[in-house]
């Protein structure tokens, strides 16, 4: 991986591990990281929407790095689910591209 790619990916990161804790953010243009145990349903939904539409990067789950046990569980669970989603993103994108395509084309002037 080149340095530029690394920087780019860093900029597309939404979930990270730091100081034994998990963090998330909803805007990659600012370093506004929030502790993962603070996450609410609106933010989780926003993360899911971002994962479905943007290049979405996360620090891989690492049991040793996440010493905070609550953070460890929440990170492992959300990371696992988002990762599963991202693994199916090509299929998801294909479905989205085909979705209501004939209707949109028909009614577009």
């Amino acid at each position, binding site marked *: 991986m080149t340095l530029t790619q690394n920087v780019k990916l860093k900029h597309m990161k939404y979930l990270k591990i730091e100081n034994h804790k998990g963090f998330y953010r909803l805007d990659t243009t600012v370093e506004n990281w929030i502790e993962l*145990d603070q*996450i*609410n*349903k609106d933010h*989780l*939904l926003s993360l*899911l*929407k971002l*994962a*479905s539409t943007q290049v979405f990067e996360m620090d891989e789950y690492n049991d040793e790095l996440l010493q905070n*046990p*609550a*953070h*460890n*569980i*929440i990170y492992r*669970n*959300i990371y*696992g*689910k*988002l990762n*599963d*989603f991202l693994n*199916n993103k090509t*299929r*998801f994108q*294909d*479905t*989205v591209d*085909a*979705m*209501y395509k*004939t*209707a*949109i084309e*028909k*009614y*577009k*002037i």
Partner: protein
Amino acid sequence: MKKIDLHTHTVSTVCDSAFDFDISKVKEYVEKLKIDALAITNHNVFDMNQYNLIKKSLTIPVFPGIEIDLEGGHLLLITDTDEFEVSNFDEKCKRVSDLIKTKDDSITLAQFKSIFTDLGKYVLIPHHDKSPEIKHATITALNPHITSGEAGSVSKFKRMFKEQNGLTPVLFSDMRFRADLKDFPTRHTFVDLKEISLAGIKSCLADKSKISLTKESGNDFFQATDDGLELSTGLNIILGERSSGKTVTLNKIASSSGNTKYIKQFSLLQNDEATFNRTNDSRLSIIYNNYLNELKSVIEDVVQIDIKQNHLNIESYLDSLKKFATENEKKDLFSKCTLFSEDIFSIDDLENLDKVIESVTTLIENNEYQDIISKYISADNLKKLLLELIEKAIFSKNENEEKIWLNSIIKDIKRELGIKTTNSIIEEIDFYKIALDEIKVRKFVEVVNELKTERQINREELGKFSIVTSTYRISGASELKDIAHDKKAYSPAFSNYHNPYEYLLKLKETGVEEASLYKFFVKIESETLNKDGFKVSGGERSEFNLIHEIKDATKYDILLIDEPESSFDNLFLKKEINTLIKNISELMPVVVVTHNSTVGASIKPNYVAITQKNLENREFVYRVFTGYPSDKELTCLDGNKIKNYDSILNCLEAGIDAYTERKTQTYEILKD
């Protein structure tokens, strides 16, 4: 000349709508219509006992036959009447019955030939200009055994007759001898034979000059009612005083002729604009439905989504996750098990893969564009591609099966552990589905916003009129009531019209049925404009209706019009209607009942019928006199005659005296 009907039904099969057979109707039919030979041709079945019963009860030859579903079309197969042949035929027909069990079944040509090995001894008549037709290739393959084809109507018979080197046309009743039958159909064929025999019929069917629609009048006439009234296959005018039986005659023609377009008296008159628009809109329902079809499918899908529930699911998932995380220190024997906090496997949706397989299969199976396809992808590579995709599909489907099986185990164990433990359980959640639902709603909004752009969606020219259909945004809750044809309170829904998804939910809350939701997003209206581009007036609406009805008549076999003058003024009748009626009578038989001299005298019909009611021996006797317009006398079937000129003036101009008076005094004075 002998009158034959070789296509009749006496057994209700899977191919018919149910009916009760009544043998007395066969006798009545043969006597009333003076039939010289009959064939019993039920769908894919031959009932020998019933056939023998019918044969015994009639004095005319009755041929055993069957109507076979062959390669998607219908074929009549008729054989001779001798006892040995009938029982042989019965055996063969049983084999056909064994192969055809539902109305969609059909036998192949090879099966047909293996059952009826000696085709030379039968008469074979395929549906030709009649649905469902036997394919041309099948007819060719049965050469030289097919010489005639069954036409669906008088006009189709004439069309086939004119075709050079075409099959000899025949017209048969295709009737069901049902117990509730009132008027009999009048579709028969005359063959030039002195004595009926299967061989004789067969030779006539190979020679167009030996068949005819009528006994003595050739193919320019046809039998219009079951009591023997013959009319021209062109334009006929029925005249007569009030209550002399004109409409009764027209009704009888309608019920004997099958596929009839009947324009009833006053039916074209439309002074009320709202009624006219409504009928117009129903005429355009195909355009309406075609235009909204895609929206309908989208809504059928979107309406299944429950975004609110999805959000609640995220909330409860997160709450349970956090609770589980904080309780981590207090884990007991049960919650310590790995499976307790294990996620279930997500199941792969293989719809896209199935679509790809279907597309590759289409590429392989397509013959029409095979040369272009093979220029870029070899048939071999396509097959390999298909094979690999199928392997992938099998693998993925197996994997899904395994995951479903494992999930059921994981869920069972988690449930049992959950009952025993004091710790919280993490709720299940499907991120893939939730994300997809969010996108669906977004795309639905996109679809509706595009749809709301007002536009003209169809323009149809009809004579001097144009019908323009356009879409409009909905401008108020009252328009929603018009769409729904009910009085529900649509204001709360309409206040969300700018937000399609909220609007959809509100419409559901209001009680709009899911299947009707698609009607509420745009208003579709059609406008009928005259040749100057203005909205049509009252009189023009009737004209438009007539032009529309006459255009529609081309889908039928015969056109009947009862008193067109009831809806129009004389000038329009003379200028426009007469031409229209004349033109359509070139395509099919047309019968016009009229009192009006403009229609009656100036339309120049091919044939005239005058109805009369007389009191004879204290009883009313109804008669129909017919003849050419130039005939001095018109004749009734019972031999009675009337003077043509006098009778026409009586019917149209209230008699000679009134006519002369009007001509010399009123019209001439006006002229001066």
